């Protein structure tokens, strides 16, 4: 068992990889009342083609990862979700572009719930009948998102940044794509992406590591699961063609999303966690609430507190985005463009601003450690193999020069793309 100590944060992490490949990460927190456990596979909505043991390529319709997540709860004779309820545990699951996670938290019956988590995720049951029923439920879920303007704007931006790519598809897919799902496809995916060596189990909270690890070992020893080679094949990304897209929808004020697609290869060689931390501080220095830029636009009513910026690195997809709700979207676009063009002058001599933002970001990271769910889910474990504690430690090593170098990488030859939702 590997043990890592984070002295400054007063945290420690125990890691063990079992014989069958299952990775177990344990973070004991004795003074908490509940325990949180989450089982994750790095399989998400971006995985759309794969090969098992070097045989022919299998295509995955959009929405399948999410569909499988729902379906895994339903067994021949019981509902796995209900079983958590009977144990008094609070269970859930979610699917993102790059992961699917199954989780629960509880103050009681932890061991029974943990065994149940492992068993239901590792024992698939898919039939034609249950698949047909699920198509109805998910169909409604897709509809629900269609009524959410913020969701439409977010997806709209991804569609112009990455046209026809898996990222531009709704994680839930469409009625049409999910109708193509068969039991055989789900079994194949499960065999490939849910085999033990693909899974990570994180446990955070009140528990006894030795006992719990023994329990997991024992549980896994009872299962014989085939070890197979799996290759996920990434899609070739198309070049964007649209700069601006306007969609009409019944919203009170226009909503706008702006994005910069980053193609820089230098960026790809960087540690993703470090790049993300630098990008966040850079965005604060350029567009944060403490800047003259922000206050000026705020005073003019061009932006309000809803204004947000974000930076994402998700496998091959790397982009900067801005979101706002404003009638003055042309002025906002010009202001962002202008700020980016002048980034050198804006960042020059801002070393002390950098230092104070770094301290503030450290403080924010520490505040996040209150929550067991955050500790397990808000690190970069899946994408870059850095947990939330590593992320906080990495942050403290950043320098002002890192920010300037990064700005040079992302602010050259910028094309700002826009998606606007208005009446």
């Amino acid at each position: 068992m590997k043990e890592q100590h984070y002295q400054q944060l007063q945290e420690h992490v125990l890691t063990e990889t079992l014989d069958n490949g299952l990775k177990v990460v344990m973070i004991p927190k004795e003074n908490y009342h509940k325990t949180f456990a989450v089982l994750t596979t790095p399989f998400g909505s971006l995985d759309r083609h794969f090969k098992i043991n070097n045989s022919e390529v299998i295509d995955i319709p959009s929405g399948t990862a999410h569909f499988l997540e729902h379906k895994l709860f339903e067994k021949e004779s019981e509902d796995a979700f209900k079983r958590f309820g009977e144990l008094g545990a609070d269970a859930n699951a979610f699917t993102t572009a790059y992961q699917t996670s199954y989780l629960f938290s509880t103050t009681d019956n932890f061991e029974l719930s943990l065994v149940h988590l492992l068993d239901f995720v590792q024992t698939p049951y898919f039939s034609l009948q249950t698949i047909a029923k699920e198509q109805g439920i998910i169909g409604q879920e897709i509809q629900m998102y269609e009524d959410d303007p913020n969701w439409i704007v977010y997806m709209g931006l991804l569609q112009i940044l990455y046209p026809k790519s898996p990222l531009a598809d709704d994680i839930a897919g469409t009625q049409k794509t999910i109708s193509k799902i068969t039991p055989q496809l789900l079994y194949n995916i499960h065999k490939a992406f849910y085999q033990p060596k693909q899974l990570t189990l994180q446990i955070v909270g009140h528990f006894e590591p030795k006992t719990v690890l023994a329990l997991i070992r024992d549980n896994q020893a009872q299962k014989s699961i085939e070890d197979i080679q799996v290759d996920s094949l990434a899609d070739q990304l198309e070049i964007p063609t649209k700069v601006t897209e306007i969609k009409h929808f019944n919203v009170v004020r226009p909503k706008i999303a702006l994005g910069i697609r980053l193609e820089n290869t230098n960026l790809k060689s960087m540690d993703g966690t470090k790049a993300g931390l630098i990008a966040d501080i850079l965005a604060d220095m350029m567009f944060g609430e403490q800047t003259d830029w922000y206050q000026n636009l705020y005073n003019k009513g061009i932006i309000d507190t809803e204004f947000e910026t974000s930076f994402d690195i998700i496998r091959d997809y790397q982009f900067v985005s801005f979101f706002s709700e404003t009638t003055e979207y042309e002025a906002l676009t010009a202001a962002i463009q202008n700020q980016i063009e002048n980034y050198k002058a804006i960042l020059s001599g801002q070393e002390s601003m950098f230092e104070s933002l770094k301290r503030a970001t450290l403080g924010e990271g520490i505040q996040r450690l209150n929550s067991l769910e955050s500790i397990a889910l808000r690190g970069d474990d899946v994408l870059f193999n850095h947990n939330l504690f590593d992320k906080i430690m990495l942050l403290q090593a950043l320098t002002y020069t890192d920010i300037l170098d990064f700005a040079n990488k992302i602010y050259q030859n910028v094309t700002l793309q826009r998606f606007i939702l208005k009446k």
Partner: protein
Amino acid sequence: MDDYITKIQSFILTNTMKKIQLKPGVHLVVMPTKQFKTLNIAVDFAAPLLASTTSARALLTYLTAVSAQKYPNQQAVAQKTIDLYGAQYQTDVTRFGQTHHIRYQLQMPAPIYLNSADAGYHLLTDAFDFMRDMIFEPLVTDKAFNQSVFLQEQQSLINEIDGLIDDKKRYAALKLRELTYSLPAMQRPTLGTVEDVKALTPASVYSAYQSMVTSDEINIIVFGDVSETDILPLLDKWPLHSRTQQPLQPFYRQGLRPATVEITETQANLTQAVLMLAYQLSLAPDDPQRFTAVILNALFGGSPLSKLFANVREKSSLAYTIYSRWQHDTGFLTVAAGLASDKVELADHMIQAELQAIKQGNIKREILEAIKTSVVNDYLSQQDSPNSEMTLAFSRLLTRRETPTNEWVNAIMAVSVEDVAQLAQAVVLQTRFTLLPEAVE
């Protein structure tokens, strides 16, 4: 008497909450714990809920979120929170029954994790000074809020209220509220109405502010690795004056309506329907049946094991979201469902049938036991969140009632099928609001 600090030693062994009276009408609770990596400060101003002051009180939380004498705009406030190591400062309006609350909150990292020798002392002091500056030294001249900040925040609040219609579930909840309550103040949205906000002036909001700082009941909670001896000297620098203590009456109650009131509204650009129902389930504040009501709600629609979730959503696929919520403070049980428009009638019918089944005692014993375990789990889990702990403490201060954890758990575990069925007899449908997509030709 003014400077006399009374200390009410709680007789409860678990979850002891010690209430210190700083001045009549002004109380402090320090909740020392090393469990978390933050220090939280929350200041609550409570007043009776009045239709005439809702909008002004909402706007003043906007004004005092972004300005003060010392920090005249958003930029200055943001810079200060950055200097406080990324502290989160926020202002909110909430209500509990018929009391209206303005709450100022600050969360910051606990100094020992910052790797900085000098952070400890000055961070705590700075935080309290900052809160004092924001709350008690607003950007005011000649008994009126600064005109330009006022205009800007007035517009922000109008935008927020106008924007509520874009969130269909929240919009439907507002319409249900309007329909359900008979008292005008209760019908209002928490942020007030656009019409009222437009009528406000820098002077009228200042007068609402004055009334808040001089007359509202004030409760201060400090949560983290601190003791009252750290905090009391810092609060000495706050202008906390005694106020006339008229005990607030937080619980709202209204009479039963003879028939169900209902409204259906259609909207363009909508694909799903929203169905909202309000039932009366009104108990006296200290009625021991309140524990049964918690279980009744969890069984009806308040948990994944509930009848509405298991039968309406899972078994019959009639709704994607469906849940119920019981509010002891208002005496209502509400149901919200997001569903396809052609399934509204069927779902509605099934919801009533599920309630009927509960009234007839058609409840599986093992489900009830599981629900009790879940409810207890949720309750105990709150102890792992500073916000939940502080919210609980505020409601304890307001209701002047503190049920120790073990008593709470025992009372929940003692609820029987018969108790639930009997209490369900008192659940009466009062209002129904349906939001439908406009029919496409």
